[in-house]
């Protein structure tokens, strides 16, 4: 480990690993939540559609930090107050990793929901009709016909969501999870070299972003193979 890290290299590397773990897990959760919400919003039920609309509108209007604090500090307090009121006082402590990942997945589910919804609508209706004409079940149609085509439309926007989510993981440092931001913060305080360490954190985030951009370009090329392009 280089001298400039003053012995904090492994800790920061561990923080980087945790940041990536949080980001990947949250993104996975956000994709699942978004897919489920978008299917609900495309369903015939007016009530379900309205519920999804409220979810996406409210979530997109609230800063991540606020929701994170609300979940991490608010929910245990609420449960404790309620249980104390009912005569069974209990102590609740949320695991910061679980609370952070759940909150981020919930927030970015609202964004991926919009992405999947517009991707679903972008697949021409004729595709569904011909799949039905061939006798495919609705599940088979979605799995083999619609979903691969949706992916092509959804990937660029999903890449955007991933980048924003990655940067939002820095906010989890506020709820004491020792991810990249928190470990560099601790190192910066102990060594009194905040500029050096926060710059290292920035460079680490930048590295993940650049790798992601490269990966996204590859993924888009993969999803677009077999599609004729009019010009290069």
């Amino acid at each position, binding site marked *: 480990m280089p001298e400039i890290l003053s012995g904090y290299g492994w800790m920061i590397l561990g923080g980087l690993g945790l940041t990536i773990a949080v980001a990947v897990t949250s993104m996975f959760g956000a994709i699942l939540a978004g897919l489920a919400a978008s299917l609900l919003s495309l369903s015939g039920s007016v009530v379900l559609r309205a519920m999804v609309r409220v979810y996406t509108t409210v979530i997109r209007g609230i800063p991540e930090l606020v929701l994170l604090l609300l979940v991490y500090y608010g929910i245990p307090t609420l449960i404790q107050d309620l249980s104390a009121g009912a005569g069974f006082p209990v102590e609740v402590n949320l695991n910061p990793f679980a609370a952070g990942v759940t909150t981020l997945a919930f927030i970015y589910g609202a964004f991926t929901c919009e992405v999947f919804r*517009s991707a679903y609508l972008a697949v021409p209706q004729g595709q569904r009709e011909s799949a039905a004409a061939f006798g495919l079940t609705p599940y088979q149609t979605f799995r083999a016909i619609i979903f691969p085509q949706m992916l092509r439309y959804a990937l660029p926007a999903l890449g955007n969501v991933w980048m924003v989510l990655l940067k939002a993981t820095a906010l989890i440092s506020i709820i004491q999870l020792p991810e990249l931001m928190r470990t560099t913060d601790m190192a910066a305080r102990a060594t009194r070299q905040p500029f050096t360490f926060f710059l290292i954190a920035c460079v680490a985030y*930048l590295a993940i972003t650049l790798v992601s951009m490269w990966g996204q370009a590859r993924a888009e090329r993969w999803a677009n193979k077999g599609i004729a392009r009019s010009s290069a």
Partner: protein
Amino acid sequence: MNVDALIEGLPRFVDGLMLTVMYAGVSLAIGFFLAIPVAMMRMSRNRVIYWSATAYITFFRGTPLLAQLFLVYYGSGQFYQELEIAGLWWLFREPWFCGLLTLTLNTTAYTSEIWRGGIQAIPHPEIEAAHASGLSSFSAMRHVILPRALGLSLARLYERSDLPDPGDVLGVGNIDHGHNGSRTEYSLTGFRVLRSVPVGGRAVSGARVRLYMDRTQDRSQTPPSPSSKPSC
């Protein structure tokens, strides 16, 4: 819920609300204009100019706002002596200055890419026509290119107003108080102050922009507004 605490905190809530609106408004306003020269640098044929603008934009779009804020606010302390000699320490000492500086730099990076997208979307003959009519480069920019680019990118500029989360800035000032006292103070004020602000603010600015869009331009020229937050 403790109603007394809420009422007691109301004046601070209002103060915080004003601060949030001020931070968001000032940084967005400065960034809106500052982004124009940055966008032009990014389109420059001079390699040094091009790469310096590209590096600036990549850094501020590729790292979390929280990390940038910590880098400027805490990081400047590492250069206390140099800043003192340069006569700038009295500024960098202040949370409001560091917050505003970072938010402005951050929003400028995002907005400049939106400007660039708008400028590059202008059909080339229009620019040639402006030059052919004898407009100087400056007049062509002022009267033809920028108004056109503004129309083309207005929908995305509005979405931009989502992004600078002044919530993060409030974090900086208050976390600092947390050093001598309690961290909970931060969580309480931060949370109360931020909860309802952005929803209302965005609704108002959104309505304004829509009005302006209806008034100034043909709807068919508006690029489809991406449903996700714009990012890298």
